[in-house]
């Protein structure tokens, strides 16, 4: 790595504070140093370039405010985040007036610390022409790679590039498995909000009350069992992008609540007294006919108009068949690297099958088929027989029945074989077997399968 990493100077008189914060930030790859008082901090500032300073207000010797003023005199552009003891709001407010970037209370919540530092770095990027830092931040947010050369997908990508920099709400429409989340990530990654999080919420996966708690968060003790406060997704998306997948499944009640947040730009955690300002970009996705739902009164029209500002239609895979070989090759490369299986290519006859199949499950189904093929097949080529049977043309004889084997025997052997080939990666094996993980765990138990005999443990 040749570019300069983000650098943070920690000023606190307590060794354990400096030490633990330095460790904390090093895990993010940041360059860090500590200073035990104002003197040492000013010294460090003269020696080296720093992006952010974390400054404890209460230190023996030079007063925190004094240190702040002298830091700014030395380096006007530097961003100082004040650390204060819980409850000493006045001194924090004074520090803000003196030009501190923000303040946090001790003990610091890790999520708040990450968030405030991210915001500071974004501010630094906007205000400085610091090329090295810029390069680092650019590198931190890579645009997801969307594979395809067909006219259909190129048109989609053009639209993504056009709308990404605007702050407009985007509605992504397409069948399931077409990669709507990837498009949402691409929009986020090319937007000015890219240094903040993109927070996905699958609205269809949760019940109404769970979704509410998920979106709004709650205070400690808001309801039985809530031992900790919990930030909602709206808050997590502050500064960034909120991605609501399957937005058409929202209940009437949640629709009203979402609308209220979009209009007021405020959320109130369950059990909280005061609302909190939130600023996020909204991207939604659906595979449903929202217009029909509006006509039937199942989706509020006022919400529909808020959500449906810019629409991006993702074509199903069968309408961009020329991308199938490219996509297959992409997944082959990806999975063979992950699994360490030396596959080189898909045999032409197998490509033929892939291109002809209608792919009702779209790209996700294609990815699963390739992943499975790498497990059941033999390198270096994916052959037609490695692909799921559903891809095979209807003609052709079925394999001879294995006389004498009960269904259970065959199942047990098959489950074991797949587990062993995946190195007992239960998620992957379940995907290939097309059952959920709990079902797979049950089968492992039922057939008393265990890994001890397999090769994975013998690897050392």
């Amino acid at each position, binding site marked *: 790595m040749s570019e300069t990493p983000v650098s943070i100077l920690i000023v606190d008189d*307590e060794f354990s*504070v400096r030490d*633990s914060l330095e460790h904390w930030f*090093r895990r993010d*790859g940041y360059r860090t140093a500590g200073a035990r008082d104002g003197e040492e901090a000013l010294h460090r500032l003269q020696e080296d370039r720093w992006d952010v300073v974390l400054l404890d207000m209460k230190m023996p010797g030079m007063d925190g405010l004094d240190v702040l003023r002298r830091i700014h005199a030395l380096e006007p552009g530097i961003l100082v985040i004040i650390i204060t003891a819980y409850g000493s709001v006045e001194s924090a407010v004074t520090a803000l007036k003196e030009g501190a970037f923000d303040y946090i209370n001790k*003990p610091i919540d890790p999520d708040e610390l990450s968030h405030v530092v991210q915001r500071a770095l974004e501010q630094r990027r906007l205000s400085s022409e610091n090329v090295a830092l810029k390069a680092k931040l650019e590198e931190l947010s*890579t645009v997801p790679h969307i594979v395809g050369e067909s006219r259909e997908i190129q048109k989609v990508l053009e639209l993504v590039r056009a709308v990404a920099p605007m702050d407009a709400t985007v509605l992504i429409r397409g069948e399931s498995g077409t990669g709507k989340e990837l498009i949402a990530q691409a929009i986020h990654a090319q937007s000015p909000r890219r240094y903040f999080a993109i927070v996905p919420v699958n609205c269809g996966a949760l019940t109404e009350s769970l979704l509410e708690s998920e979106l709004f968060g709650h205070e400690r003790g808001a309801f039985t*069992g809530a031992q*900790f406060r919990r930030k909602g997704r709206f808050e997590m998306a502050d500064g960034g992008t909120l991605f609501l997948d399957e937005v058409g499944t929202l209940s009437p009640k949640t629709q009203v609540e979402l609308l209220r947040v979009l209009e007021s730009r405020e959320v109130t955690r369950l059990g909280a007294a005061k609302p909190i300002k939130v600023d996020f970009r909204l991207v939604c996705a659906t595979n449903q006919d929202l217009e029909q739902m509006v006509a039937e009164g199942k989706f509020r029209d006022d919400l529909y108009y808020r959500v449906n500002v810019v629409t991006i239609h993702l074509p199903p895979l069968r309408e961009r068949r020329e991308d199938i070989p490219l996509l297959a090759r992409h997944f082959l490369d990806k999975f063979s690297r992950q699994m360490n299986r030396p596959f080189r290519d898909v045999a032409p006859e197998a490509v033929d099958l892939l291109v002809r199949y209608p792919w009702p499950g779209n790209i996700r189904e294609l990815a699963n088929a390739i992943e499975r093929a790498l497990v059941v097949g033999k390198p270096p080529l994916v052959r037609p027989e490695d692909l799921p049977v559903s891809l095979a043309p209807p003609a052709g004889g079925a394999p001879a029945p294995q006389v004498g084997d009960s269904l259970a025997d065959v199942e047990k052997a098959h489950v074991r074989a797949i587990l062993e080939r995946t190195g007992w990666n239960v998620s992957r094996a379940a995907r290939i077997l097309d059952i959920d993980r709990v079902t797979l765990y049950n089968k492992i138990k039922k057939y008393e399968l265990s890994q001890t005999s397999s090769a994975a*443990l013998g690897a050392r």
Partner: protein
Amino acid sequence: MSGIALVPIHLAEGPSLLRHLEKRLAATFGLAVEARRPWFDPDRAYDASRGQYNSTLVLAQLQGGAGEAYDRVLGVAGVDLFIPVLSYVFGEAQLPGRAAVMSLHRLAPEIYGLPADPARLFARAVKEAVHELGHTYGLIHCREPGCVMRSSTYVEEIDLKEERFCAACGRAVRPGG
């Protein structure tokens, strides 16, 4: 002796979780994994004023004594961990080094008033274990979507990661493997 030692620290979930971790860690790191009782008094890391355990002190305990016999030592705590100045941590690790510790305390959905979900808890535990051990191999936080080395400060962010390293991080852990 070598390989990875799993050291339960006030762990109520007990054997089933440890067995699950053993399997997943063995497969991921290609090392033998064994659970063993702490050879130290974990309560020396307890901070009564905070009602939490100081993870930095736990790390120091794990690293020494019987822990020296292993390539890696991972403490699996059922209690809440903190580092001075932060209100809590999911885990901590030496970067690089041999010792890591993780806490299950804030990984369980019921702590947040949600229905219990053992499968989710186990999955989160594996990801945290792999993540913290990843740091002991010198890995810093990774931006690759899905990579287990992504930083997660919210428990829900753990769910967005997979149990495995991306290709680049994986190479640091098992070069040539």
